[in-house]
């Protein structure tokens, strides 16, 4: 027998659970994270208006990433976490 090799390396991340879900949107603070790709802002503004019209949100905050391709800065993530109960982000394309 001849030995053969796997050049791929292992993908091994410890499993992480998502956050607890919410039941209703009433009185929640909504964060919107725009990754600044083309038309993400238009999509998110539309979505924000439709959400506000349908649900009594307490507050809405809008954030923009400095670069669509990089991960959001840790400071920005912390600010979003601190000031919001639910978040929507776009766009992965």
């Amino acid at each position, binding site marked *: 027998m*001849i*030995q*053969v090799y796997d050049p*791929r*390396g292992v993908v091994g991340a410890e499993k992480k659970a998502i956050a607890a879900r919410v039941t209703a949107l009433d009185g929640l603070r909504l964060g919107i994270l725009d990754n600044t790709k083309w038309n993400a802002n238009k999509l998110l503004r539309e979505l924000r208006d439709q959400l506000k019209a349908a649900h009594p949100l307490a507050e809405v905050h809008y954030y923009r990433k400095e670069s669509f391709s990089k991960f959001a800065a840790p400071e920005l993530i912390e600010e979003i976490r601190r000031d919001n109960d639910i978040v929507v982000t776009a766009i992965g394309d």
Partner: protein
Amino acid sequence: MRVMSAQLAPVSATSVPEGTDLVEWYYERGYSDGLPVVPPTPAKVAAMLEALGGEPQQLEARVPPRWGGLTREVLAINMVMAGCRPEYAPVVRAAMLALCETAFNLNGVQATTHMASPLLVVNGPIARRIGMNAGCNAFGSGNRANATIGRAIRLILLNVGGGWPGDLDKSTLGHPGKYTYAVAENEELGLLAPYHVEKGFQAGDSTVFVMAAEPPHSVTNHVANDPQGILDSIVSAMSTFAHNNAVSSGHCAVVLGPEHATTISKAGWKRHDVKQYLWTNAHNTFGQVAFNHRYGKVYNRSLPVWYGRELDSRIPVVPSAENIHLFVIGGEAGRFSAFIPGWGHMSSPVLREIEGKGGPAAAGPRCVDGTCYL
């Protein structure tokens, strides 16, 4: 992602019957870049591992977008497959560490629809020691070190990073540099200070520079016998709204062929002068990059806020002369240079010492007040 002192499980050892066509086997498994790979043997992998310092399960980096674990063993396997010699190991490792630094944004570079691919330029004594080509045909074929170092990087981006075309690598066109794109700077001719010395390293340090890059765009000038004439041709190549820097900002590279570099050097011009001349003169109008608002009013948030937004505003090709990375590379005959556009502000080039701490030498840059424009 950087992981310190982590250990991962070894790759599962598999065997195939004697007489199996190994080249075909690696093709069938989908581990090839399209060219036949060198089937690893225990001896070859061991030799490569020794050059890396042993510890096969030592995790060097995780490679996006798959975030596969690049242990020393996996690094060794891919280097053998590429056809590397063990003495190339420090270069390939340093290059992978540089590519996995956050600033480079390898995740984005792997996935983009743009054709950008990592370009590697090696500086310092190691280039000559391992036989890299910084001269005639440096960007071409025929040199084992250039060919296999660049290839090892690509095999790792494919196998470990998962950047397979059509799958997670969405590049619309690709480019030949996705087979291999590794060169050394021609420091031997001593025409300009070496790139890494300009950036604060000692000449005796060896470094890797990586940048997400388009292919080189040849610049021909067989007429000018002064720096301005030669550089005006390079300016011409830069002043187009077709490359990614024009609309996405960021960094680019300029390569001076030795004949051009000789003319420039003999006139007393230094690196700083060349970069400043190029930056000052290369430009587009904002109207060009905004398509004259033909498809709707364009602001373009990828470009710095201080660029003018009138149609006739004269805007630079990159935001500063320091975003132009200048190298002297190539053979001594031929009046050619090259412009190499980058991907954009989404990725920053990385310069990293080989086997070092990462960053300029401890003594720090020596020319902070402009007294020795290199």
